[in-house]
């Protein structure tokens, strides 16, 4: 089988999702010919990183005209290259880039997309996917009938591939490249913390934090763990935290390895957005709070005492382990 993975790069670095997609491709067919597709200007040197993370081939469009991301420009370009290179499957990330570009490629090819999958597989020769719907209140199993078979996969659903492969570079031509909407500038968030949508650990706060100033406790724990800071809808709507931090049905739906909910009671919309986390910790003073029903570990207590104590215990663990 021939599988394309849509690699992502930013600031001269291949993004981790690219390597996770290689693992997903190998899960579909371990002997597949996995082609990482990379577009941009001056991105050639990144091919080595993709090889080190399991790409058999790197389909490279290194062209100054396509230096800046354009959904229609890159979408039409990659639809044309897909017609020429004929992958059986195309996997993109369910990221701000992948959720934007992958459907545009699919539209150009006149085919469907199984979007935001947390698991992919093959059944009777067709791509299947498990995708949360209603923000995770239910799971849909879907089968893709059109060719090439396309899916986007949520970050952290697969570990990054660490098995090197040949990474043979195949240069492709941008042809008569035309772009309408074009990225002109990227403004990095002031925070150096990971983004809630792609973080491996998230520490979230809710109304139980009693005020925006107390999020310093959440941030201290998050920074000790190298984690992102999340928030419930209540505190985002109250203006305590930025919209981008919201976890839940009208915010981010996340699947980190560890989700620590502090002072969050667990409204149905919030639980939907974080229930697929591998481990959930709840810290809340109300033992009846619904958040405890999804938690692996719970501490019933005052967040103002417990959260700093957890931060201290993590520091002690780190110190003990050097």
């Amino acid at each position: 089988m021939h599988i394309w993975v849509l690699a992502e790069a930013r600031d001269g670095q291949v993004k981790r999702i690219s390597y996770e997609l290689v693992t997903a491709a190998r899960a579909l067919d371990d002997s597949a010919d996995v082609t990482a597709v990379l577009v941009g200007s001056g991105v050639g040197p990144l091919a080595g990183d993709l090889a080190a993370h399991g790409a058999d081939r790197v389909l490279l469009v290194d062209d100054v005209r396509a230096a800046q991301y354009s959904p229609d420009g890159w979408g039409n370009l990659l639809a044309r290259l897909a017609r020429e290179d004929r992958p059986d499957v195309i996997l993109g990330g369910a990221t701000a880039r992948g959720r934007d570009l992958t459907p545009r490629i699919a539209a150009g090819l006149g085919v469907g997309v199984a979007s935001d999958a947390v698991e992919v597989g093959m059944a009777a020769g067709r791509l299947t996917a498990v995708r949360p719907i209603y923000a995770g209140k239910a799971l849909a199993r879907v089968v893709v009938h059109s060719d090439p078979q396309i899916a986007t996969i949520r970050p952290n659903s697969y570990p990054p591939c660490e098995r090197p492969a040949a990474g043979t570079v195949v240069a492709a031509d941008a042809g008569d490249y035309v772009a309408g909407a074009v990225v002109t500038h990227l403004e990095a968030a002031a925070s150096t913390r990971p983004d809630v949508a792609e973080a491996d650990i998230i520490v979230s706060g809710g109304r139980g934090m009693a005020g925006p100033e107390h999020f310093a406790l959440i941030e201290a724990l998050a920074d000790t763990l190298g984690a992102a800071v999340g928030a419930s809808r209540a505190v985002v709507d109250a203006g305590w935290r930025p919209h981008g931090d919201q976890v839940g049905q009208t915010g981010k739906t996340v699947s980190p390895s560890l989700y620590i909910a502090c002072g969050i009671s667990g409204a149905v919309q919030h639980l939907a957005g974080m229930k697929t986390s591998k481990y959930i910790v709840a810290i809340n003073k109300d033992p009846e709070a619904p958040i405890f029903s999804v938690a692996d570990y719970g501490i019933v207590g005052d967040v103002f005492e417990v959260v700093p104590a957890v931060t201290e215990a993590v520091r002690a663990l780190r110190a003990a382990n050097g």
Partner: protein
Amino acid sequence: MNTVVLIKQVPDTATRIQDRTAKGRVDLSGVTWVVNPYDEYAVEEALRIKAAHGGTVTLIALGPERVASALKDMLALGADEAVQIVDPAFDDLGAQGTAAVLAAAIGKLPAPPDMIWAGWKGVDDDQGLVPIYLAHALGLPHVSFVVQVAIDGGRAIVQREVEGGKETVTTPLPAVFTAQKGLNEVRYASLKGIMAVKRKEIPAWDAAAIGVDPASIAPRAVETTEITPPPERPSGRILGGAPSDAARELVRLLHEEAKVI
């Protein structure tokens, strides 16, 4: 600046979907239907653009009879016109088919829009596909996850939310835009607005009215074979004792048992 806003009606986000999931499907009978929350941001932005630049706001929804109430809710906020596309032949369209039908309907409007807005996804099936397919079908650029927009002559300068920051995108108009939370704060309908739409007739267009042969629509490319409740999480452990003891035990378990820190 004429805008079209795509409206989807979805179950209220408070609906306990997991309790309605059985035998491989979701039973939506008797749910409360609301306007997709992301579409509300799209409507609000269209109304603000109208206030700043003039023009009209036209709402389009594809769906059964009940969808008319969603259109009335949004008309009450100040949109000018609404069109409902309703035809039994359109009951089970995939994202591509939906986009093809919407594209045909937009082609029947008296004036072509300068901007087409939609929520970035419906909070029911969470696909986030239709607006992007629509842009392609209309031969237009698109910008997704929009949190800010400024119009500058024949182009729009847009901020979109990405992981760890914001991208600025410049696009010629017309174009398709999808709204992300944070774009604006939505308004509430005034009593006057609500009274005004009571009498408003919403045209219903069927396949013939928009000139679409249902047989020509792409079949559903992604088929749902089964819907299940999310797996039950094993019952958790409550860690007791003084906060410092509970915290130490928690960190030990996360390190030694869960191995996530």
